[in-house]
């Protein structure tokens, strides 16, 4: 990708080149080639169902218009998506007006109109909103709403007997209950509940109302009625495609066709289909495009590809798991081998200088305390998203256990043995080669082994920055609350960790006599 965008002034990264090459190859094979398809458009999403569905809809629409599309779905949050967009790692992703104003541009609500210019200054363009508003809302059981004639939040004034229970966050936030009750002059006694339990509680009738997001699929599943925010208290979170200004104008135009096509209810239905019916994001998005009359195309390529692949679910699953596992292995192997080389060179360079060893191990230890997801996020400004930053982050994580074990091993070899070796007439190099190093090997290997297992675990988080691997199904599964999907990533990752342990045991058996193993 990167090397194709002229005038960035940065040397293309290895990861970028690799991905770019793959894309070129893939694009050439799969896309109905036309002039504008030469540069693929990278569509991204955050890691929750709605975002996946919207991104899929945008991706399929672009494909039907003849563009080559790369999907980077399930990135780990607003910060990562926006950074990636500004850096040109991705070209478009679905975002919400409220999030843009508050989380990205840090505008007060009054300035929301200034959003467009501020974004354009960063080379970003907000396309027309898709229609629905995914904001805080109050929901009550549909039957109760019908019985009591509840339609708007202000109606609650006359129903002080309702058992309203809100998530703890909603009860605390100024734009939650405190502000809402002031704005509407509601004087109701309310209680708190763990957010995850609220739907269950309202479904079994133990509470009468709670705070929800207005497009949650649960609203449909449990037949809840959303009360209209008649005073416009809640900020508006209108979904829209956030696109790089330098994206092909025809692609942008194609995406504007989505404007106003999805209302709250249809978004709810699509979320419910993903979360409760287990439909794939791609199928849901495809269905929506068909229903919305957005399927007339200049090429049949994208629509036909599924029909051309008569593979069974099991084959697809096996292929996906294999691909993810290989990708995972590639990430960890490259990170681990580089980390091993760096850490061992460093350890040999410093172990004879006591204070330096301490300082270096200490700094490496500090690095280890940075939460992995934060370290991944910190990598984005440096290395963008995808393969390279993930490898860099894993590498940084792996250095400590290897370095610390190596320095400890080298500095704790019995000094009398080393003295005997020297007194016998071994040169410093021979002493290192025949005595010092072999005696340190078991502990050094143990360090590499620890790093390898940490690496395999941490690499599942790399999916948050679009690096793929076994984290991909885990992130998707978490978004869908789909245990099966999570296991598609977690089980191979666990197996990989076990296999790694076994491989290292075999290596240790070869390199160290039994009585010296750690």
């Amino acid at each position, binding site marked *: 990708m990167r090397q194709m965008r002229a005038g960035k002034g940065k040397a293309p990264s290895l990861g970028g080149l690799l991905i770019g090459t793959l894309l070129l190859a893939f694009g050439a094979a799969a896309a109905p080639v036309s002039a504008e398809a030469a540069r693929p458009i990278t569509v991204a999403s955050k890691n929750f169902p709605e975002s996946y569905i919207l991104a899929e809809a945008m991706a399929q629409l672009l494909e039907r218009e003849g563009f080559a599309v790369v999907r980077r779905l399930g990135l780990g949050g607003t910060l990562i998506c926006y950074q990636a967009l500004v850096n040109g790692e991705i070209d478009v992703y679905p975002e919400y007006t409220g999030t843009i104003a508050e989380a990205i541009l840090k505008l007060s609500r009054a300035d929301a109109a200034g959003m467009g210019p501020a974004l354009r200054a960063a080379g970003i363009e907000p396309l027309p909103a898709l229609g629905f508003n995914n904001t805080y809302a109050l929901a009550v059981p549909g039957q109760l709403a019908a019985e009591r004639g509840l339609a708007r939040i202000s109606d609650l004034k006359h129903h002080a007997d309702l058992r309203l229970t809100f998530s703890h966050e909603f009860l605390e936030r100024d734009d939650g209950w405190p502000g809402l009750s002031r704005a509407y002059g509601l004087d109701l006694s309310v209680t708190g509940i763990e957010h995850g339990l609220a739907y269950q509680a309202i479904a079994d009738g133990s509470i009468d109302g709670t705070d929800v997001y207005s497009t949650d699929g649960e609203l449909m599943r449990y037949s809840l009625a959303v009360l209209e925010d008649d005073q416009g208290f809640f900020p508006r979170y209108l979904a829209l495609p956030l696109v790089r200004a330098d994206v092909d104008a025809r692609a942008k135009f194609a995406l504007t066709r989505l404007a106003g096509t999805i209302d709250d209810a249809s978004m709810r239905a699509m979320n419910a289909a993903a979360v409760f019916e287990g439909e794939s994001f791609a199928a849901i998005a495809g269905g929506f495009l068909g229903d919305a009359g957005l399927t007339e195309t200049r090429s049949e390529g994208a629509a036909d590809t599924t029909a051309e692949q008569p593979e069974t679910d099991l084959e697809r699953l096996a292929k996906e798991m294999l691909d993810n596992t290989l990708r995972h292995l590639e990430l960890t192997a490259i990170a681990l081998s580089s980390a091993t080389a760096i850490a061992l060179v460093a350890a040999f360079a410093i172990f004879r200088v006591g204070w330096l060893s301490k300082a270096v191990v200490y700094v490496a230890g500090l690095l280890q305390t940075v939460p992995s997801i934060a370290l991944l996020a910190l990598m984005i400004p440096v290395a963008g998203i995808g393969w390279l930053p993930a490898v860099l982050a894993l590498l940084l994580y792996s250095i400590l256990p290897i370095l610390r074990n190596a320095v400890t091993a080298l500095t704790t070899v*019995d000094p*009398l*043995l080393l*003295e*005997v*070796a*020297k*007194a*016998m*007439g*071994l*040169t410093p190099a*021979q002493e290192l080669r*025949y*005595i010092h190093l*072999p*005696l340190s090997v078991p502990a050094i290997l143990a360090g590499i082994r620890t790093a390898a297992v940490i690496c395999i675990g941490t690499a599942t988080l790399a999916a948050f920055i679009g690096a793929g691997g076994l984290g991909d199904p885990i992130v998707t599964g978490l978004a869908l609350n789909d245990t099966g999907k999570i296991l598609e990533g977690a089980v191979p990752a666990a197996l990989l960790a076990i296999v790694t342990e076994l491989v290292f045991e075999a290596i240790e058996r070869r390199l*160290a*006599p039994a*009585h*010296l193993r750690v």
Partner: protein
Amino acid sequence: MPPDTHGANQEPAEPCVALKQVGKRFGSNWVLRGVDVSFPAGAVTAIVGESGSGKTTLLQLVNGMRRADEGRVEVLGEPVPERDVEAFRRRIGYAVQGARLFPHMTVARNVTLLARLEGWPEERRQRRLHELLSAMGLEADIADRYPHQISGGQQHRVGLCRAMMLHPDMLLLDEPFSAIDPINRADIYPVFEALHEREPISTLLVTHDMAEARRLADYLAIVGDGGVIQAGAREAVLEAPANATVTRLLEASA
């Protein structure tokens, strides 16, 4: 028997080691000062003294593990070299208390390591290895075991084999038998004596055990009070202790 000598610090005719006005300090503390002594070639010299008297330091001045701050140390007729000290050390076998065999190497590897580094052919290495093992009263099948798989007494014998592998011109032994239990020690003395008989290498034996010194050494050097108090043939020292410190040492072992 060594040549007939009398009194303190007599010069042996043919010294393997000669210290001339040697001083060694750690920081501002002089461990040895004004040491003027030489040890006879081809004999076993015991360097005896109490803990902390500087006897190990004296030994380490000989193979250049420590450098004198004053005076001259001559070994085998030459000053201890400043450069290429490894080649020099390979001419001087070295064994220590606790044997300190390399735990990751088999007995054979421990003993033959230097010979490998010197490029001895396999056949010659094996011959010398088994010659030494049998001279030390060790079974040949011990060669393939690791140090932790053999007894402490056996480890010490292997340590001596390792020191003697290259047919050194000298042996430096730092309390080589101190960590062995008394019964095994009684077994190893005759073995050591027989080996010295067969390969009469100039040997410096550091020990705090006067009984061991009496048993094994031809010459005695008594270290204490920051120097060598008395040095000479065993009988001469035993008959005429130079001062009360020597007398006390001798009595402690009588």
